[in-house]
């Protein structure tokens, strides 16, 4: 018999844009609310998961869920205007309707991190996947040891979540280190100047009982891993997220396949141990 009860996995939830925040040139955060309240109440996700966001009429694209899993009733995404769909999403205003499918993929094993120190290392637009974990951790601050955030962008203007960076900077239970690439600083810039991997290497970081979460462009990840290992981090305590091109998000379209792994199903969160086992195809 036809299993007609099964849901259409390609049908998006209809969401209302509740709030639009301009984070940096070309970077926006949208806060979305489920139009159907029941769907909103039933919706749950874990930090690290992603979703497919659609500008109906223009298409879908993949962003992580940037809001923390501890806050209910809405989801947020932060994206850089890069191509067709992101340009269309960037035109949306408060009150407009858009599509959302998710949550998809695996998540950060935060349960296993209880009692450990957390070191977040993010570059550029890669702070969004991190922001979800950071706020999830800060909302349950007592569960974790020291929290350190190293965040870098090309220029001062490119730093996203400026308001939240200020909040983290002001907190006594968070150490925030910000940096911009050489030449990206402004006269009144008080943070560091230098590439993220270098800044990490020069910072007083203790690898003991610490988990490192690294998100950023492939080159940043490539150069940060060896620095962390030199600081004494074990591969199994280093995590990152991969951004393969995706379409379906549910292990069907074949696009995100790397070796025997499907990044949309088995990822996007991988430990450095998992990553070392993947063929060089991402």
């Amino acid at each position, binding site marked *: 018999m036809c299993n007609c009860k099964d849901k259409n996995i390609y049908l998006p939830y209809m969401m209302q844009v509740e709030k639009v925040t301009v984070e940096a040139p070309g970077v926006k955060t949208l806060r979305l609310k489920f139009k159907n309240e029941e769907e909103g109440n039933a919706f749950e996700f874990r930090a690290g998961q992603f979703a497919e966001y659609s500008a109906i009429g223009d298409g879908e694209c993949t962003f992580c869920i940037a809001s923390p899993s501890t806050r209910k009733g809405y989801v947020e995404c932060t994206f850089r205007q890069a191509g067709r769909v992101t340009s269309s999403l960037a035109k949306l205003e408060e009150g407009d309707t858009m599509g959302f499918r998710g949550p998809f993929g695996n998540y950060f094993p935060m349960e296993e991190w209880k009692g450990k120190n957390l070191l977040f290392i993010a570059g550029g637009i890669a702070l969004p996947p991190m922001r979800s974990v950071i706020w999830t951790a800060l909302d349950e601050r007592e569960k974790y040891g020291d929290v350190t955030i190293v965040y870098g962008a090309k220029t001062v203007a490119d730093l996203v979540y400026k308001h939240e960076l200020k909040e983290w900077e002001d907190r006594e239970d968070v150490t925030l280190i910000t940096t911009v690439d050489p030449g990206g600083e402004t006269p009144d810039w008080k943070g560091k100047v230098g590439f993220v991997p270098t800044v990490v290497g020069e910072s007083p970081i203790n690898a003991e009982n610490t988990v490192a979460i690294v998100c950023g462009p492939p080159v940043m990840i490539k150069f940060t891993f060896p620095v962390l290992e030199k600081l004494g981090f074990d591969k199994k305590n280093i995590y990152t997220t991969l951004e393969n091109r995706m379409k379906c998000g549910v292990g069907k379209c074949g696009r995100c*396949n790397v070796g025997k792994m499907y990044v949309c199903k088995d990822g996007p969160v991988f430990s450095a141990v998992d990553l070392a086992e993947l063929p060089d195809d991402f």
Partner: protein
Amino acid sequence: MDTLYIKKSDIAVWWAAIKGACDHVVAPVRKDRVVEFARVENYEEIATDYVQTTRSAKEVLFPRTERLFSYQKNGRDIEVKDFDPQSVPVQVLWQVRPCDAASVFPLDAVFNWDYKDVMYNTRRERTTIVAVSCSTADEYCFCTSVGGGAGDTRGSDILLTYTTDGAIVEVVTERGEKLVALSQNLFTAYTAGDKDSYLASVPQVFDVEKLKEKMHGMFDSTVWKEQSERCLGCGACAYVCPTCSCFDIQENPKGSCGERLRCWDSCGFAQFTLHTSGHNPRSTQASRWRQRLMHKFSYIPQRQDSLGCTGCGRCSRACPVDMNIKEHLSSIDKIQ
């Protein structure tokens, strides 16, 4: 599994009963120099003088373009209209080869290994597969090297094997029984046990278990570059393949309404993995050819307990520059 017999002259009678009981029969039809699957109204239209159709029958289960949903914009509001399972016709896929029937295993696997694909599943449940054993094969066929055979029943609801004066009818599934029940009086029991004498001989050219094992460690081999040197990246191989299931998702807007579609895609295209940033994990044709073979013979077997190839040989017949998968696989098999 019942093994029955039907007389040659009765096959058309049974076929007419089947035709009357479903929405469409899809069968091979000759159009000039090619034979392709098409909806058939009369039994006489069905082609018999061919080894293999150019394209596979996959379209019946997984159409080239398929609507995922449609929408209507009303001001700032958007109304979406879901896929309607009732819109899917009840079909009989008549006279596919055993290698096409076997393709349902990798397709079933990918469309169900975690999330269920309701469009695929609805089509699959509403389609009865009547396969026919091969009495002839050509130099491109290699079903016997990938676990199949000219008279293999796997994936079929019914397998017919034509004899001199009729057909042996192997009824494999309940769906198959229903078709036989439409004309029960035309069938008799078959006990001769001589099916094999009507089958084409397809020599085995490699041991697929050993090949899988070997390919597992071949990611960095130079063989991919050597083999793909002349590949144009045209994607024809993926479009004719019964098991290729990669797709793209595209929008088809028409003013304030429109639809979202999925369309076949191919890992052989340079754009397949291209990021918006310009980064492309598979920037060379060699890496894309490797993906095609590794996916079928290493990754799918590791994850979905199936093989991504049924040995139909279509990709080799369709390739404009004569890339021959059977030869390429056997040369990999011979690497020490």
